[in-house]
């Protein structure tokens, strides 16, 4: 079992410069996460929850405040922190096996132990037999399994999940939520999941961090004192879900920016004759 890390966020502020004007994205975030804890972060779009994950993983360098893992301030990215994005981000030119091995490229291990770790994780996410498949041959759910295996194979102490099941259909999503829970329990690591699916947040989280937008702030933190595996149909589950949902009922979220107009013909466009 990998060591689970504690995460300490103190007075975290982040802003982007837009047209020479500072635009605050995150304002005064304080959060401490215990080793092995599962934190769900929910919020409407624009509340900076993905930015928060990018800061913790180490992809964004400009910020004010402190992010400490086991007391040590983070410096850039590290194999001790793994991440799964909403898009699976697998390299289409590598097979499943090679894609997972990507995260061990710079790990200090013998190639034998790397190979074993990759295969153990392929089995863990239930993709035995698909080692040599190309990502283009996999369904969305299978691709996301590969992405989870890739994030876990380097034995991180913290796993970050950025709306990992957001693009999947409802059945696959609930199936993967259950499996993720089993896997994380085996690994015993700390996890932070960003989502806008309140049910998912309640199902998986030990605590739920509710964020509000513009600039992104923590509105409140909700405990989920339910035994696992959780029953989505139970009264207690529904009560917590309704409680969190209430935070979003009053504000009507501003409309999402429209997708940019596409120019020209779609690549599949062709005469049929």
């Amino acid at each position: 079992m990998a060591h689970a890390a504690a995460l300490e966020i103190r007075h975290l502020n982040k802003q982007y410069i837009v047209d020479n004007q500072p635009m605050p994205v995150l304002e005064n975030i304080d959060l401490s996460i215990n080793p092995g804890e599962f934190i769900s972060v929910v919020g409407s779009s624009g509340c900076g929850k993905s930015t928060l994950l990018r800061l913790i993983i180490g992809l964004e360098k400009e910020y004010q405040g402190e992010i400490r893992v086991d007391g040590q301030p983070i410096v850039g990215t590290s194999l001790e922190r793994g991440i799964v994005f909403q898009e699976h981000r697998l390299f289409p030119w590598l097979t499943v096996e090679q894609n997972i091995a990507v995260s061990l490229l710079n790990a200090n291990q013998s190639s034998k132990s790397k190979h074993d770790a990759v295969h153990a994780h392929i089995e863990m996410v239930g993709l035995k037999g698909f080692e040599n498949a190309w990502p283009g041959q996999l369904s969305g759910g299978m691709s996301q399994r590969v992405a989870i295996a890739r994030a876990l194979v380097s034995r991180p102490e913290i796993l970050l999940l950025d709306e990992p099941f957001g693009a999947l259909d409802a059945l696959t999503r609930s199936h993967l939520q259950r499996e993720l829970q089993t896997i994380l329990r085996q690994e015993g690591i700390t996890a932070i999941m960003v989502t806008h699916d309140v049910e998912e947040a309640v199902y998986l989280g030990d605590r739920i961090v509710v964020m509000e937008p513009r600039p992104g702030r923590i509105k409140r933190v909700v405990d989920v004192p339910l035994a696992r595996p959780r029953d989505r149909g139970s009264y207690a589950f529904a009560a917590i879900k309704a409680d969190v949902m209430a935070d979003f009922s009053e504000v009507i979220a501003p409309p999402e920016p429209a997708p940019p107009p596409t120019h020209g013909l779609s690549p599949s466009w062709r005469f049929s004759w």
Partner: protein
Amino acid sequence: MPAAKHRQQQPLPSLRALAWRRRAAKLDYWLWPWLLPLIILGLWWLGGRQQWLGSQVLPSPGEVLDSLTELLASGELQRDVLISLERVLEGFLLGSALGLALGAAMGLSERASDYLYPLVRLIAYVPLLGWLPLLMLAFGIGETLKAVLVAQAALLPVALNTYNGIRAVPPHYVEVGRIYGFSRRQALWRIILPAAFPMVWSSIRYGLTKSWLALVVVELLASSEGLGFLMVDSRQLYRLDAMLVAVVSIGVVGFVLDQVLAMIEKRILRWRRAGFAS
């Protein structure tokens, strides 16, 4: 009942009918591409037979075939093909290697693209033959001239597409490399190059075709051997049958060169085929 009636009107096709349909589809696949060339060949043959044009102006297919066997028997055609091939490969390898280096430099370094890209774009708008007088002054009309022109024909498309291919690499992929602690070198070899490869390779294919066309043009103008020379020489001797042999050979060699690269591409890009065709 209307449903039953409907079913009666449109019975399911029998297995035999399906097999025929599949055979017909296969025939379609093989027949259509050949239809137009065969008609042209037929007209040509008919024209020669009916003397629509004098055989001095348009030799019949039979004469061209005779000329082909003659040129093959004397070894002249093989020699010219080999010489042209050697020249094109030499120039193309030089040009595409330089193009790759130039495109990669522009794609990877902001400064290199600031300094070089506008000039490269500008040069790309000057037709190949526009450089010929200048290059003739600089290099004479020997082998160097041919190598330089052929190289230049491949260099520009390869450089521009390598640049664009690298620019188009999704930043998402590069971030994955950063997350797993890739060095710049690892990111270049394991992420940027494979991601840009399809675009780069198609420009290499295009570059080879351009090189081949450029070579034939230079051989037309300044050479004493090679397929382009065979063409211009036959024309001057009024041997249009031999000239047509040269024309066809140029087309065939160009096609084969491109097919070789297409086969390599299929092999390297099997992940793409697997992704879309299965």
